[in-house]
């Protein structure tokens, strides 16, 4: 694993994975959208609005997954000072913020016809909003301090502190009396959702996962190039 700490080796590995990630995303997105919008049945209670769930649920999963990637990178950067770890956190943050914003927006668009309101301050919605602010805080902190090392360290500490919010999001529907429905896919005792709805959900989740890998690797290469350019600018000042 440590041999990929070398940016050149990592770049070569990323170049090999990038086309695969793109194709997995495209190949999952086509049947995923077909099943989500056309082939899957309407829900007996939610009607056709259930089709929003095929975006909302994968976006919500990705918002938490991306945060764990960012926190893992933060831990690695702080403990082992892995040269690419800080860049990985920086590369993941905007993707995570986007998925979190999408989970919030699509949830609101589903909530209006189903609950009669776009927003309610319940445990699940509020903790996901906190997750969104954690992403924004991470990105702001990372850019606020001129010294990149110090900025990365401060942002990494924030990312690690924010990990406490992930189990809060997951168990908020069990701990508090919320309007948001309890877990129905990833729960003890198996899913309560019919296979005709689980299939598009998992295929769309695969498409979102492949999108994450694709954009994350492009962003990693971008951050490596930015770091290289910064070093070159410093050396030019020294010439």
């Amino acid at each position, binding site marked *: 694993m440590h041999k990929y700490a070398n940016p050149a080796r990592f770049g070569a590995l990323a170049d090999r994975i990038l086309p695969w990630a793109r194709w997995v995303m495209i190949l999952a997105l086509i049947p995923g959208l077909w099943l989500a*919008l*056309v082939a899957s049945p*309407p829900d007996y209670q939610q*009607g*056709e*609005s259930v*089709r*929003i769930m095929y*975006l*909302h649920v994968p*976006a919500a999963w990705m918002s938490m997954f991306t945060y764990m990637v960012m926190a893992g990178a933060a831990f690695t950067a702080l403990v082992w000072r892995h040269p690419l770890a800080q860049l990985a956190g920086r590369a993941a943050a*905007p*993707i995570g913020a*986007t998925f979190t*914003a*999408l989970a919030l*927006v*699509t949830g609101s*668009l*589903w909530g*209006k*016809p189903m609950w009669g309101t776009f927003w309610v301050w319940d445990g699940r919605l509020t903790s996901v909003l906190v997750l969104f602010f954690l992403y924004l805080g991470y990105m702001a902190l990372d850019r606020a301090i001129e010294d990149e090392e110090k900025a990365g360290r401060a942002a990494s500490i924030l990312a690690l502190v924010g990990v406490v919010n992930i189990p809060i999001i997951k168990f908020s529907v069990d701990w508090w009396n919320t309007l948001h429905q309890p877990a129905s896919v990833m729960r003890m005792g198996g899913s309560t959702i019919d296979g005709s709805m689980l299939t598009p959900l998992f295929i769309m989740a695969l498409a979102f996962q492949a*999108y994450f890998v694709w*954009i994350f690797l*492009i*962003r990693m*290469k*971008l951050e490596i*190039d*930015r770091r*290289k*350019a910064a070093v*070159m*600018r410093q*050396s*030019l000042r020294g*010439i």
Partner: protein
Amino acid sequence: MADFLDMGGYAVFVWASYAIVALALVGLWLRTRGAARQAAADVVRLRERIMAEGEGN
């Protein structure tokens, strides 16, 4: 077709969700791609400058 577009009366919410997700994901990809190209071009330009200035010294 009209039934499909109507989404059982939830058209505004369903299509708005799909449009917003598409715009956000395509937008993030375009922004990332633009920034990556810019950063790669910067590296090439700076490398050439360093080599030129190195030869000048």
